[in-house]
């Protein structure tokens, strides 16, 4: 497997609009490539991939593989995975990293099946094993109460999806430029299995997974109206609103907002949990947040064990005070 080289990052877009967070993995890709004595590269599949490829260069990719084609206007798993598999067969990367977005997950999974290689999922740590030069991937297991280290020594490329916001976004530097390798892959429209008919934009402005600040409510809200209080705080902080399963199952807020084992896994810089006791299933979705603030009436609530700042009190009194104080300090 010696002829597999370089660390690739998948550059994602939605209907041709680049997802800038894709570049997040080019930082860690450069670190890994440095240890392997190889290069950090990127790949893009799109109707018009060239501008996105150039942009990837500004973020540190030294080579970008681009496939252009009208079949690639919107993401479709079959079209994209076949195109990605052909790139892999042509250029033999050592490692491929994808963000754990819906698109990153669907593409990596289908491609791994087509190429017949392993796929490590939702990494929160990446390094190179010094002896075997194999990618070592750390991921949360059993609701985050354990960390598992995973390696694939059987097949290449070694593929992994990476949890968003774990690695720092590299600086954009427009003086850098990547070598762009244009490749092609032909698919007939009739052979493709699906077509996107429509996209209905959500009314919720902030994407929970990408948010730097999340304010969440749980069973302690007591009623749907409690989320108005939560939202007021999220709004003043420019953050997103999250919820525990208990709040979602009570019908107080949409399932899209659920954080936890049966909801979304998030890693914001600040997570404010209001009226959330901290069941293991909820902690699974947010325990790697940088700073956790917990507000709960019950001093024994398990959430306090992982909180950076703990407030024993009623959210209904504490949160409006926080809103006022933030408005004052932030001149809003």
């Amino acid at each position: 497997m010696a002829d597999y080289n370089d660390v690739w990052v998948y550059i994602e877009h939605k209907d041709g609009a680049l997802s800038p967070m894709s570049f997040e993995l080019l930082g860690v890709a450069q670190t890994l490539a440095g240890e392997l004595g190889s290069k950090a590269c990127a790949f893009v599949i799109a109707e018009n991939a060239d501008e996105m490829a150039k942009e990837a260069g500004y973020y540190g990719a030294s080579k970008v593989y681009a496939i252009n084609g009208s079949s690639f206007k919107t993401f479709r798993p079959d079209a994209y995975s076949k195109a990605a598999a052909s790139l892999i067969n042509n250029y033999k990367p050592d490692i491929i990293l994808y963000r754990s977005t819906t698109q990153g997950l669907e593409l990596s999974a289908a491609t791994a099946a087509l190429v017949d290689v392993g796929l490590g999922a939702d990494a929160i740590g990446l390094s190179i094993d010094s002896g075997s030069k194999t990618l070592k991937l750390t991921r949360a297991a059993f609701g985050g109460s354990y960390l598992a280290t995973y390696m694939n020594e059987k097949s290449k490329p070694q593929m992994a999806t990476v949890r968003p916001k774990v690695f720092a976004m590299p600086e954009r530097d427009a003086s850098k430029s990547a070598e762009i390798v244009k490749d092609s892959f032909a698919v007939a429209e009739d052979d493709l299995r699906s077509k996107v008919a429509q996209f209905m934009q959500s009314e919720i402005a902030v994407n929970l997974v990408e948010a730097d600040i999340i304010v969440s409510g749980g069973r302690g809200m007591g009623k749907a109206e409690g989320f108005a209080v939560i939202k007021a705080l999220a709004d003043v902080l420019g953050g997103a609103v999250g919820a525990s399963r208990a709040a979602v199952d009570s019908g107080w807020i949409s399932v899209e907002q659920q954080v936890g084992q049966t909801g979304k896994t998030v890693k914001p810089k600040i997570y404010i949990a209001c009226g959330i006791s901290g069941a293991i299933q909820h902690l699974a979705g947010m325990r790697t947040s940088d700073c956790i603030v917990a507000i709960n009436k019950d001093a024994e609530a398990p959430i306090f064990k992982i909180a950076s700042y703990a407030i024993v009190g009623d959210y209904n009194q504490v949160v409006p005070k926080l809103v006022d104080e933030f408005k004052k300090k932030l001149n809003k």
Partner: protein
Amino acid sequence: MKIAVCIKQVPDTEAEVKWDLQKGSLKRDDMDSVSNPFDEFALEEALLTKEKYDGEIIVITMGPDKAQDVLRNALALGVDAVYHLNDPAFAGSDALATSYTLAKAVEKVGADIVFCGKQSTDGATGIVSSQIAARLGFSQLNFVSKIEEIDEAGKKIKVHRSIEGGVEVVDAKLPAVVSVAKGINEPRLPNLMGIRKAAKVQIPVWNAGEINVDTAKVGTAGSHGKVIELTTPPPRAAGEMLKGDIEEIATSLVSKLIDLKVIK
């Protein structure tokens, strides 16, 4: 219409974890187990689909002997047939080997539509449904929050997918693998008569030979990745309890959070 459902028995999230580091896999027999919560939505969607369009539901699971519990639960809900993929050769399968094994079973069943949960709560990779689709050349429809229409004669399906920023409406060809999101339905519970009937059923077992798999591609042998280490995460730095009256607490917390330089 033939409707297959792939379900999994998983350790109870609250259960003590028993791990075989030599094999890099769970000691499933020694742990308290439940049906994977996401698979309950898949099973319910299969039942709703049958009620609306007619058809036959075949439920498949792969796992050790006790995994048949999840099939008995499916039988109690009124599914038409169940198969237990059980062979020592299957033990220790990663997502790649699991998707291969399930795809072979789906092939044998001959399904028009395959329902899966969005992911399991133990492996939690969310990989398997996409890989079953890729292996069989079926349409790959994940994170489905609504099935708008199935046109069996025209071999078409229209679904809503709940993805970042909104809902994508997709037209696809059948056969398809559909992984469902939480919220697509409210799973029903089995009634007593269903449970009694299901208890008496002899559950058919399919081994490696019966689904015609290449044994080099299943179980530990067919898995590419291996867990080499299992550790407990470093404890979080001790937190601070904010005390005082509510004004003091608010002032103190706000200045601490502003100091993080995250809030703009």
